[in-house]
């Protein structure tokens, strides 16, 4: 019974205009973003090259410069992104707290806050502020140097003071700032990275992570439109009453709809991933490596499936509960807000909806973050399950009440 319903619901998805727009936009976006440049640049590092990419540094001076630069921007905007429970929470300091933060900055650098402000404006004036990538680049190259004789221990104390001002989960905790500052790699480091890329990731898995980075942005928003149009269609077509009166259970009706939408949204993702993966699979062969042919299934299922699940489940829940398109607003705010609030393009997953990995490789760093990623994805799978159960309960309740839960039924 469930299988037959599932197939019928797939047919419903295929007949909706929203779905076609989703497929076209997704495929165009992915094929235009995933350029072949990465493929051509993928070479085994040789000694004596001018540039080998970047890596996280453990150099204390660089850590201090990078962290103070971030602090300077946050203090100037008076807006601190914190993730106390994994979710974003913006912090604004009071005037006296902001004064304290400015004094801490002055203490570390030996310059007045006003001077620092001047220097910062001059730096950012040189960059285009539109694309998130450019903004990140401007931030990445911005440094604030410490005053002479300032020790790392003093710096740590200063950061603890900042943490007391802004609360838990900011970028000024030791575990955070020691993993966030990037520097160019040496040949040895680059070689080690490349070996890991070959042995651990077999090329294709690393490439699929990059794919998931871009796809994740789109999938934080697009599926909501598909889900909302399906959930609203009963009301629009005035078939609610007749379906309510049938013996089929709410779990069957909602469950088959949800699964059909999930599968139909997933299909273009998997197909695009497979097609884009193939050149990398063959490139791996030229290096004498057996690439992972199934990476196009494994990696998107881990990175993207939980995301699509929660976006669709929330769309179903909000739409069934309110009988409006409110889910569109909620999801757009969550998706785009999360994208803008993102503090890094690689790692730092927390409980963010969109987990980013905007790099081809860094396999060793990824291995160290794998558990954090699994926690994130597990959490969203669970949350999607809860939302789905709530949707079924709401649906059954509506059935007994004769229609909407919040609007007047006649």
């Amino acid at each position, binding site marked *: 019974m469930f299988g*037959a319903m599932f197939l019928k619901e797939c047919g419903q998805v295929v007949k909706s205009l929203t779905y076609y727009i989703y497929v076209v936009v997704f495929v165009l976006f992915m094929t235009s973003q995933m350029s072949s440049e990465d493929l051509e640049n993928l070479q085994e590092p040789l000694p004596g090259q001018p540039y080998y990419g970047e890596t996280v540094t453990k150099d204390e001076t660089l850590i201090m410069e990078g962290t103070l630069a971030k602090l300077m921007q946050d203090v100037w905007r008076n807006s601190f992104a914190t993730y106390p429970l994994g979710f974003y929470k913006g912090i604004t300091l009071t005037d006296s707290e902001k004064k304290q933060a400015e004094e801490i900055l002055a203490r570390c650098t030996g310059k007045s806050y006003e001077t620092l402000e001047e220097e910062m404006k001059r730096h950012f004036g040189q960059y285009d502020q539109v694309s998130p990538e450019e903004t990140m680049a401007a931030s990445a190259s911005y440094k604030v140097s410490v005053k002479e004789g300032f020790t790392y221990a003093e710096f740590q104390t200063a950061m603890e003071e900042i943490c007391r001002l802004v609360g838990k989960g900011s970028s000024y905790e030791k575990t955070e700032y020691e993993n966030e500052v990037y520097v160019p790699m040496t040949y040895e480091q680059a070689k080690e990275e490349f070996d890991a890329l070959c042995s651990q990731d077999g090329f294709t898995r690393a490439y699929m992570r990059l794919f998931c980075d871009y796809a994740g942005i789109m999938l934080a928003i697009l599926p909501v439109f598909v889900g909302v149009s399906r959930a609203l269609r009963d009301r629009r077509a005035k078939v609610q009453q*007749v379906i309510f009166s*049938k013996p089929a259970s709410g779990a069957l009706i909602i469950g088959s709809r949800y699964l059909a939408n999930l599968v139909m949204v997933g299909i273009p993702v998997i197909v695009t991933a497979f097609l884009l993966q193939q050149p990398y699979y063959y490139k791996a062969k030229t290096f004498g490596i057996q690439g992972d042919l199934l990476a196009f299934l494994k990696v998107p299922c881990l990175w993207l499936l939980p995301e699509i699940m929660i976006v669709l489940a929330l769309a179903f829940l909000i739409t069934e509960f309110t009988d409006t398109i409110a889910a569109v607003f909620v999801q757009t705010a969550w998706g785009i807000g999360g994208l803008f609030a993102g503090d890094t393009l690689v790692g730092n997953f927390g409980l963010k909806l969109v987990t980013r990995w905007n790099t081809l490789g860094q396999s060793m760093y990824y291995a160290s973050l794998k558990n954090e990623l699994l926690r994130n994805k597990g959490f969203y799978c669970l949350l999607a399950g809860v939302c789905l159960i709530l949707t079924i309960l709401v649906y059954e309740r509506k059935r007994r009440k004769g229609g909407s839960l919040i609007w007047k039924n006649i």
Partner: protein
Amino acid sequence: MDISIEIKGLTKNYGKKKALSEVSLSIGPGMFGLLGPNGAGKTTLMKVLTALVEKNGGEVTVCGVPVEDSRQIRNMTGYLPQDFSMYGNMNAYEALDYLALLSGMNRAERKVKVPEMLEKVNLREKQKTKVRSMSGGMKRRLGIAQAIIHDPKVIIVDEPTAGLDPEERVRFRNLLCEIAKDRIVLLSTHIVGDIEATCENIAVLNQGKICFDGKLTKLLSLVEGKVYSAEIAAVELEKVKQKYMVTGILTTGSTANIKIIADDKPFPQARQVQPDVEDAYMYLMHREEGKR
């Protein structure tokens, strides 16, 4: 199996508004008509019977099963809502197949039943027509097909003939009579003609209360000897209307042929005529109004 609907002291409120108050009815096999003006509570009563609305008080059982057991109730009942529609992008066959699936029928059953039902409601040739391009009558016929496809013991149809042309209406009534063998067909309407042609037993609902329950002949007996027809001058019409209940007017030139209900002979030229259901219904409504 006991084929009956028993309703005792049923009450339903929407907020402060009383939609049904202390309704009691006993319905047996065959066609049963539920008559009443718009807003009388007919739709609410039908929704209670199909477990689409929770009651506030009283007891309701369908074929011995209390309405609280919604799963069982939905298995036993077929419901055609007042404004039945289906997804516009499905054709007649797909729509019926979809709803049959929701009624719990497996693939093999559907393969036999869906064409059979389409045939029965005369949609077999139009089975590829999309719901969005169907006429009101076609939609209604599709609606009745989905209500009976799983062979329910009780069929509940809400205002099925509203908006149909006379020919379609007659066909629809006949169809209902045909399927009413060995089961209950509960038909709600505010169109008296539908009831007259099809139902032996009826109930009249007004302001959420039952004001009549019994055989059609009993309803007619209420106005026995009280219906008169007369020819009067057209200019007199307003005056007569204020004084008596007028149930029919046919104006020709300066004279008007009228039908009125009155306890005694209203004027000398008036002559007694056979009452019809419409007269009885009007009389009943008028009497109810007088009570309030």
